[in-house]
């Protein structure tokens, strides 16, 4: 690393649309810092896909890169078409919890099962922020949101554990209070093949924090810090004790034959048989 880091060199000269205190700034900054530390002078080796929601605006259109802003929940299928035909490019999906594990959950599981060569970064703010703070599949039980005024009567989804079960090659979860750990995870994940999933628990003071008594980003970050435990620590705790906790760390890191490898092997064989 000879150059000093500046997010500016990767960003279009446009005003960012995010609210003050939004965790997206941390995710955006951390991702670009990871890219910089991997010596990518620009984003020409990347393609970004993102659906609908605040997090989908991380790459689109702010990154100076190819970015495809897809229908809600469909970033992973669009990325599937791109990666299969351009396996040489790093395809990265950004999305919120609603986009990735709400409306897009089926695609998330199937891409993981297929071991599609894709990095998915999910910014989990536990709420539908862009539409004004409705309950999400990741909202903690009992939480009051605009569509659960008496408290959420459903249990949240653990996306990271789901990705492990479905067969991801790399799964990590951090919060926006862990920028260094997050950056190292992103660097590792960019260099790997197969399906990689990083969940970032992130603050939305505007549509979530202020309704649960955490009025500022600072209050929300304090809440994350106080309720975070490492995956190593969590293994020693009972389910009951973990109910209110955010478990962070690397959930899995492994190699499996990837979709791109399998598909291109079949093409090669089919063409060989055709010639004979």
């Amino acid at each position, binding site marked *: 690393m000879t150059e000093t880091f500046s997010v500016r060199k990767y960003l*279009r000269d*446009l005003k960012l649309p995010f609210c003050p205190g939004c965790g997206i700034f941390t995710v955006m900054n951390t991702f670009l810092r990871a890219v910089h530390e991997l010596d990518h002078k620009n*984003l*020409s080796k990347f*393609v970004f*896909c993102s659906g609908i929601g605040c997090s989908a605006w991380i790459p*689109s*259109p702010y990154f*100076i*890169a*190819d*970015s*495809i*802003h*897809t*229908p809600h*929940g*469909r970033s*992973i*299928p*669009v*990325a*599937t*078409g*791109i990666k*299969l*035909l*351009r396996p*040489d*490019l790093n395809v990265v999906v950004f999305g919120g919890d609603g986009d990735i594990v709400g409306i897009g959950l*089926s*695609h998330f599981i*199937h891409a993981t099962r297929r071991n599609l060569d894709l990095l998915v970064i999910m910014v989990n703010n536990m709420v539908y922020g862009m539409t004004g703070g409705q309950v999400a599949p990741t909202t903690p039980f009992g939480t009051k949101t605009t569509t659960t005024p008496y408290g959420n009567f459903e249990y949240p989804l653990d996306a990271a554990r789901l990705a492990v079960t479905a067969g991801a090659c790399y799964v990590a979860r951090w919060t926006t209070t862990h920028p260094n750990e997050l950056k190292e995870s992103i660097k590792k994940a960019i260099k790997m093949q197969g399906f990689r999933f990083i969940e970032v628990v992130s603050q939305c003071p505007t549509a979530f924090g202020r309704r649960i008594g955490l009025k500022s980003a600072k209050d929300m970050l304090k809440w994350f810090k106080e309720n975070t435990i490492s995956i190593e620590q969590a293994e020693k705790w009972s389910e009951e004790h973990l109910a209110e906790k955010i478990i962070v760390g690397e959930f899995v890191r492994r190699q499996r034959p990837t979709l791109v490898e399998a*598909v291109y092997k*079949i*093409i090669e*064989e*089919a*063409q060989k*048989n*055709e010639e004979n």
Partner: protein
Amino acid sequence: MRTVNPGTYFWQGNEACVEAAIIAGCSFFAGYPITPASEIAEHMAKRLPQVGGIPIQMEDEMASICAVIGASWTGNKAMTATSGPGFSLMQESIGYAFMTETPCVIVDVQRAGPSTGQATKCGQGDVMQSRWGTHGDYSAIVLSPNSVQEMFTLTVRAFNLAEKYRTPVILLTDEIIAHMREQITVPPLKSIEIINRKKPKVEERAFFGLEEVPPMPAVGEGFNIAVTGSTHNEYGIRLTADPTVHRRLVERLSNKIQNHVDEIADFESYNIDECQIGIVSYGCTSRTVYEAVKNAEKRGIKIGYVRLKTLWPFPERIIKKLAETAEKIIVPEMNLKQMFYEVERTANGLAKIIPLNKIGGGELITPEELLAKIEEAEKND
């Protein structure tokens, strides 16, 4: 890397569609099993790898159309195939393809709906869905084959129109045309016109405006393309509050099709300058027309027809011409009047428009039923 050899074959409609797609340059197929379109996915799964292409079965139709859209942005030609229920699931992203000017081909092999209806039986109930299925203002290009040979030629044309106008094109076929087997001739490859999308020059940056059909780069070529289904300017930058930007974009997208109706229009016509009774038909229903017309002529009835191969944009000019001559126009359809109203609107009182509709069990309107309608129309002056 072999496309099928020129020659004579005995193919199913769905098979002809696949071979034509490959000749047109299709290198990616994503789909989800559904009767009566599954043979397209099965044949693609076998044939695409042989020519270096990629077939994939996705988890649903929404994923299928989106994978096709992603594939198209890599600079490849891509398609999906489905039937009514899956076509409904794709509608949101067909609108996305229209808004982002993503060329792709969607085959809808119609069956009897609504809902699961009679899943294995023929119907023509998706005519209006193919035109108005997605939300918002848009224009669709929809082609309708009536033979296995036309499954071939119109599949090639669907890709050509998609590439030329940078828009999704729908091949609206039906269970009868897709499942029947007929003799078909694959002409020498050199004689088949193949159109490829216009690529930008190195310095170009306006991929979403300035021209009626802007050039389309691919990802990974260094253009830093910003693609979005939200309202955007000619550089792809999202501008969701400016009324002028929205108006300019959506009107251009619609006009780039509506301004070329005559070029996109494709039809077969017979005796439309002298007929007293006219018939407007399309798809499987039009196969009945030939025999009914022959028998009507034997009875001395002055009859002519227009058989639509392009359903949308609606080829008004030829229908108007028919309405100027014919006193009555019969519109046979395997639905409860869909194209009927379009013909009536276009004729605008110049001719009386008579519906002939039949649904259920995949039963075609028979030549006898059509002839009876023709005779009835002739008598009731």
